[in-house]
């Protein structure tokens, strides 16, 4: 055993931030996708399990949810991917002025979505305690609301942060890029929820 280390690799030339899977943040994000994705999958499994036991879905005299609010929400959410993609690109090219504007846009989109979400709750035509169908539908909507509220607050915080002098630092661009990735997960997860809450009760 030799006491003196042999100096072989110099790490000093390595960069101090990187995007995508090279960044630790991305791995944390993926882990949370998996956790939340599993929670959604479990909730969906519970939904189908209960649906399978129920003689009718929804059980009469309950009506399926009204379509307007949920569909409006879905359309706006899908459209939001446009500014979201632009924000991600601006973050990755470290274009601060563009990123600042796009973050403001995304914050406003989030606000609009939260307002529409409120109307969704009152158009379900069932309350959570009335039967297992009501419980299942409310479960999906509450879960996704938690999800979207979390990312909306994230976006608000990043919008504020990028307007300070911290916004010039490379790692904060990584944060914004990953926040945009998370937003994609938010709308991707919504699509099956939309089908299960609004359409399956019409078909089943």
């Amino acid at each position, binding site marked *: *055993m*030799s006491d003196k280390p042999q100096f072989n*690799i110099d790490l000093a030339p390595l960069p101090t931030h990187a995007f995508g899977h090279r960044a630790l943040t991305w791995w944390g994000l993926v882990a949370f996708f998996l956790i939340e994705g599993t929670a959604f999958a479990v909730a969906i499994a*519970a939904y189908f399990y209960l649906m399978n036991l129920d003689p009718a879905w929804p059980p009469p005299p309950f009506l399926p949810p009204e379509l307007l609010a949920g569909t409006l929400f879905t359309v706006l959410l899908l459209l939001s991917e446009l500014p979201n993609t632009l924000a991600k690109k601006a973050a990755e090219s470290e274009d601060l002025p563009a990123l600042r504007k796009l973050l403001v846009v995304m914050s406003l989109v989030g606000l609009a979505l939260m307002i529409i979400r409120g109307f969704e709750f009152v158009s379900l035509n069932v309350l959570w305690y009335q039967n*297992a169908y009501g419980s299942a539908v409310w479960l999906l909507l509450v879960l996704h609301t938690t999800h979207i509220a979390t990312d909306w*607050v994230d976006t608000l*915080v990043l919008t504020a942060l990028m307007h300070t002098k911290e916004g010039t*630092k490379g790692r904060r661009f990584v944060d914004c890029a990953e926040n945009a990735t998370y937003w994609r997960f938010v709308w991707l997860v919504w699509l099956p929820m939309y089908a299960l809450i609004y359409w399956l009760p019409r078909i089943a």
Partner: protein
Amino acid sequence: MKPEYDPDGYRRDGPDFTGEPLHAKLTETWRDGPGLLGWIRSVDHKSIGRRYLVTALVFLALGGVLAALMRLQLSGAEREIIGPDRYNQIFTMHGTTMMFLFAVPVMDAMAIYLVPLMIGTRNTAFPRLNAFSYWMYLAGGLLLWIAFVLNVGPDAGWFSYVPLAGPEFSPGKRIDVWAQMVTFTEVAALAVAVSLTATILKKRAPGMTLARMPLFVWSILVVSLMVIFSMPSVATASGLLLSDRLVGTQFYNSYEFGDSLLWQHLFWFFGHPEVYIIFLPAAGFVSEIVQAFTGRRTFGYTAIVLALIATGLLAFGLWVHHMFATGLPRLGYAFYTAASMAVSIPTGIQIFCWLATIWTGRPRFMVPLLWVVGFVVTFVIGGLSGVMLASVPIDLQVHDTYFVVAHFHYVLIGGAVFPLLGAITYWFPKFTGRMMSERLGKVGFWLSFLSFHATFFPMHIMGIEGMPRRIYTYPAGMGWETLNLISSLGAVVFATSVGIFVVNMLLSLRKGERAPDNPWNASGLEWATSSPPPPYNFAHLPIVQDHTPMWNDERPVAYGLRVEDREMLISTVIEAVPDVREPSPNPTAWPLIAAAASTVLFVASMFTPWAVVIGAVPVAAALIAWFWPKDMNHEGEPVIE
């Protein structure tokens, strides 16, 4: 020769900055602050790992006391030491404490402490998340035990089956305490799993490819992924239970088309992987101990890695074997029997690999290896009774009897606690800088091993003779008295032997022989640094060239990380090529504050649903403050790309 300061003005470790001056500088950068505040603010994986370990051992002791009380009550027929209501709380608390507050956290503790050392890095990824995790775990444990002391201890068993645990049959707050304790511990376990997964994949020393990773680290990687895929299920299950109890949802209420078996599916989809979440780290301990005490590489490295992964996958396909007695379609019985038997194959592969290592190596039968031998014997017996239980006709006969109690104590104590005690003995010098007493260790081992079997073997027979589990007493003349008495006497000796282990730890902590860096001549990187390690773990990052770096003569290192800020190396996932230097967080109290805010939310939401809405505000505020950069004037290093 490079100057001590780079042209860009940053000081880095390297040929010109090494030895004592580097030690002083890195210590200043990486150490916890002084006093209580420093303790609270620590994000050092070693501090967090140690406090996790001590807390888990305290819960082990508490759970053990409850076990002793149950054995006292059952030592003879019709004893009246404990009444039925208290007994229900005690067996529920025993199972809950051991599973949620001891077994999983103690494995987390070992992993948090050891993984960064074994892969040659300075701290875990997301160290504040680790700190947060500990506080959540502590809060969940306190909630459960304070409630128990106040006679609000849960009493529907550690898996809280509905409808017994539902609002109709369990009014009051006992079950809510249980369900919220689940929430706390799941948040804690998930946070650790995220941190460890990212650490293992992105923080490995240069050259430590996935194929050279220590087997313990492999086991923790598999377990962390299992936690990520299983814990959301129990968190959802307990969340639905709480909402049935608090706001009147109908998930488990069959009168409104809910279903009580939904609970069992959701619970066991977590509950069965949980068993392997506890066992696989123990298998990792065994692989490491066997390697160190036979002086050869563990036999069948690739086979063991594949076995770990196979166990992790199969674990998700057998939860329904806990539900054989609920009535299933024929195909369901056949499938889950086959799956349950199949999982014994990868476990068998590992056991044969360990035996082959001992057979072909030069074994030194010191205390850690003795625990491994005790583990193999005990775990194989437990595995065989497991294969018996996988057969539906046998399962239906002995379901809910002491046969099942015997089986799972053989696999959990034999399969996890024995390796854990071996692992604590093995790594004690790294944790504390002192050796544990070999003599006391041997006495403790033999007493534990023999008394364990005296305590739990008779339970197989009691079960076959029809003694149900979870009864607070039994009438005379059932033919169960002698076996119960033997079991209770065994339990007294078993408790004493665990006491001897604890005394050994405490005595050795004060007066044990001083440990050198590598007292066992082991092969892993954790032995490349001092015992205990300095706050920064490694002065220069080690470079890994094969599976057993400490058995080589050469000590190549990587250098050039900044020493005045906490900076860590990010490497590539598969080949561990150095890729990026990223800063690592400084000590902070925000994880504790966030955990305190979450505690308020969780506890208050046992009483009113509005707590979820109102309580979310302080939680969000704490998390934002946690994220918000503390020192905006601190200029980042100019980007070199």
